[in-house]
């Protein structure tokens, strides 16, 4: 199961790649990037391109986060 969050998060980045983010009063370390892809979305509505990361958190959780060239957002949390 997964839950859509789609909320901005504070993100620490190294060489453009996510390293850790702040979520529910604690920092989640990015242990591993399991997958990475990009989506152009509704370009005709001037929607920004997003780069998605599916990451493994240090505490064992799986998260989907994205960067839309402006903000980092936590998109989904997997149970």
């Amino acid at each position, binding site marked *: 199961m997964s839950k859509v969050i789609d909320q901005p998060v504070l993100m620490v980045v190294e060489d453009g790649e996510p390293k850790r983010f702040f979520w529910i009063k604690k920092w989640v370390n990015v242990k591993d*990037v*399991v*997958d*990475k*892809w*990009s*989506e*152009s979305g509704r*370009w*005709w509505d001037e929607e920004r*391109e997003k*780069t*998605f990361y599916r990451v493994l958190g240090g505490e064992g959780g799986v998260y989907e986060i994205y960067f839309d060239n402006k903000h980092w957002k936590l998109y989904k949390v997997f149970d």
Partner: protein
Amino acid sequence: MTSLAITDHNNVSGAVRFIKASREAGIKPIIGCEVTMEGGFHLTLLCKNDAGYRNLCSILTDAHLSNKRGQPEVSLTSLALHKEGLFVLSGCRKGLIPSLILQKRFKEALEIAQDYKNVFGKESFFIEVSESLLPGSMSLNRNLWQLADIVDLHSVVTNNVHYAEKEDFKIHDILTCIRTSTKLEDVHPERRLNRENYLKTEMEMGIEHADYCEGLHNSWALAKECECPLELGTPNFPAFDYYEGFSSASHFLRHLVYLGAEQRYGKVTSDIKARLDRELNVINHLGYADYFLVVWDLVKFATRCGIRHAGRGSAADSAVAYCLGITDVDPIAQNLLFERFMSLERGEKPDIDIDFDARRRDEVTAYVYSKYGDEHVASVATYNTFQGRSSIREVGKVMGYSPDEIDLIAKRLPHVPGYMLENVFKTLPELKNLDIPEKRLNVLVETASKLSGLPRYLGTHLGGVVISRNPITQFSPLEKSAKGVKILQFDKDDVEDLGLVKIDLLSLRTLGAVEDSLRFAGTGSGLDYDGIPLDDPDTFNRLKSADTVGIFQLESPAQRGLQGRLEAENIEDVVASVALIRPGPIKGNMVEPFIKRRKGEEEVKYLDPRLEGILGKTYGVILFQEQVIEIASTIGGFTPGEADNLRRTMTHGRSVEEMEKIGETFIERAVQNGVQEEAAREIFECMKGYASYGFCEAHARAFATTAYKTGYLIQHYPAEFYGAILNNQPMGFYPVSTVCVEAERHGVEILGPSVNQSEKEVSVKGNGIRIPFKMIKGMTERAMESIISEREKGGKFSSANDFMKRVKLDKDIMRNLILCGAFDEFGVFRRTLLWQCKDLYLADSSGQKETLVEPSYYEYPNISEAEFSLEEKVSYEYEILGFGISAHPMEIWRDKLKEKGFTSSQEICMVKAGDFVKVGGIPVRPHRPPTKSGRTVVFLSLEDECGLVDVTCFEQVYAKYGEFLFPGERLPLGIWGQVQKRGNTFSIVAKTVFPLSYVLS
């Protein structure tokens, strides 16, 4: 970047242009293809060498020809059979191996990889890894590397490029939507998720695959091993199987030419011999003897079978072509330049174009296939590209515009290339007030203009056929056209670069019309087309009166205007007429001076005495391309090749800089040749004024002969020739309705369709033209045959009931037959018959309840007792036949129009020049030709029951009334304007334009 491979889907159409562009950029071109395998999986093939390219062509030909059109599939058997010279890559995510991995079917993926390795060998089969930032890519690529290790295969890194820059993704997405009939808002698996399919730099590729350098190295090694398989420009001309007793094709050609020369000239003088020898020398030196023989042979075939034909274009500059019977203009007598056609210096392939009777052209093509064999003949393709209108239509659909909105815009839009769209939407009055929000329309126009010139689909060239010495599939794969013809994957220019020779077997409906009029006249008439005298006074009088609707090349309003002023007296004037109404002479302001000088109203002056010899026959005006060449060589001292290059630069509208450069050279050399600099500049300005399209004299002469002869036919055999025009529709400048009005104006009777009298084709009896079944909308071959065969078998139909009992037709055809009056001879009202027929039909039909009349009629049964009004009848006739049999719409409204002070086309000649009149009619061909001032002027004709009234709308009037002039449909128009008389012609200069319904309602 040192090398780049092109791997389009299932075609190599881009290969020639790709090779040229790569070489220009200093990049090694690699030719390949992304093929669709059976089951829809993709596989990448790269050519190592010539053998690989030949095999790729065979694989693609097999895939295209043995599957449904547009759905080619390569079988593994075919691939294995033709594997030599090819590198095989496992493909993108749609490849069989990657898709199995994505489905986590690892074991099967391994088995397939092992199978491919067994078939192609480790040295030729590679695992392909590319990064497109799609979900699952990371694990897919990891698994592909592992798989390569396990099966002991090399893997290579590739970039799946679909467009050059990231920004082009949008256009690619639009094109994908067009291809898959998807709207932007809708999802489709073929649409790409992101902008990652752009051409990445070597550095970007290095960073992207930094953890897998081996793959990158393998790619470079692979590229090194590939050689460009296509040697552009190496000739591969057809081989002609010449007759026994001759040592070579050139020997045989020489024999035929001299044989022909004796027939054409009687005595071959030393001048003729010198000319023929000079031409033969060039032809043989460039290796075109076989080509001439091939053309001679097919012309001979056409003559033998009675297929009317005529050579056109610059081939008429060749005495060899004349002696071989390919063309009918004597270039020696007319002093035509052979160099315009062929020259050693240029060394280019000569273009021999031949027009054939449109209906029989396919017989000639079939002959070519049977003579040279399927393996050596194929049709040339055309790269159909997005133009203004097609872009608007397609992008409109994708953006969710309604069909009505798209129709409204597209029908008002002139035929312009896509890059002009933004400009025409800004400037053309008929494209304003479209009732579409500005921002929405702007997005449409901007997006559509970006599609300009992009390939849309592979079409078939109108008549271009290639005959090759070696099997044709060594040069190009073949595929099926929409009509089922086998076509190459290259267009005419690329075919020439490949060293192949194209022969144009064109179809000209005018030749069909000539043939038909001879048939209608019958052998008893004594009419001999070839023997038509070229000095018939009646024909010239017809031209002088500008009464030329229907005459080949001389019927447009501009030509009619010219005829009324020029008053042609001989065939030379007709040649000039054909050449004068062209963008070059019009923009170069040569029409008026020519007319005045020809009529002796203006003195002929030359800027240099040497020009007299060149321009004497055209009264000092540059009319023909040959004259440009001659001026360049006589005045500018250009070599024939240089002069022809100048002509090309001018006629193909090349860059201003290039023109300026040539101009400077010309002036410099002319001054060296003793011409004053000022005069040299002026001469060059005249030549420049001619720039853009003009005819070559040879072509103008060939066309002028046909023009004059069709004039003779229309003058002396009106029923036969108007009938022939109707039988060969669509042809000429005017719609069927205008042809009928013109025929009737000349005393010919147009007889409506009749179930007892009509044939499949037009028939002519005495002074009457019987409208045939084929002109009825929706008519089918089967329906025509069933009517005619029943009539032949059981005799004429005695009543409508008798017809309906004996012939079973589709309900739409039946409806149309009734409504266009095909049963009128039985004296039953059309509406009554429609009503009766409905009952009969349902009684006989196999349970399918189809109504023949509009549902509203059922509510008023009594209506069936009365006939349609004349207006209703004519409206149906227009819908079904394209013209009125019962009356012309203007005839119905004439009394009312007269009351309102309207003048008919017949009465215009009685109005004083300068007076103001109101005229009304159905608009015919409103158009905006190029003008010398560069301003937009709209020309159109208004058709009424008596003929045509020509109308000119200048810029201000057009700006105000553009939406009425180009409404996107044919609605009757009214015009108020001033009568103008020029020569023997009348026209109206419009001041106000309005829909005629404003005054009729």
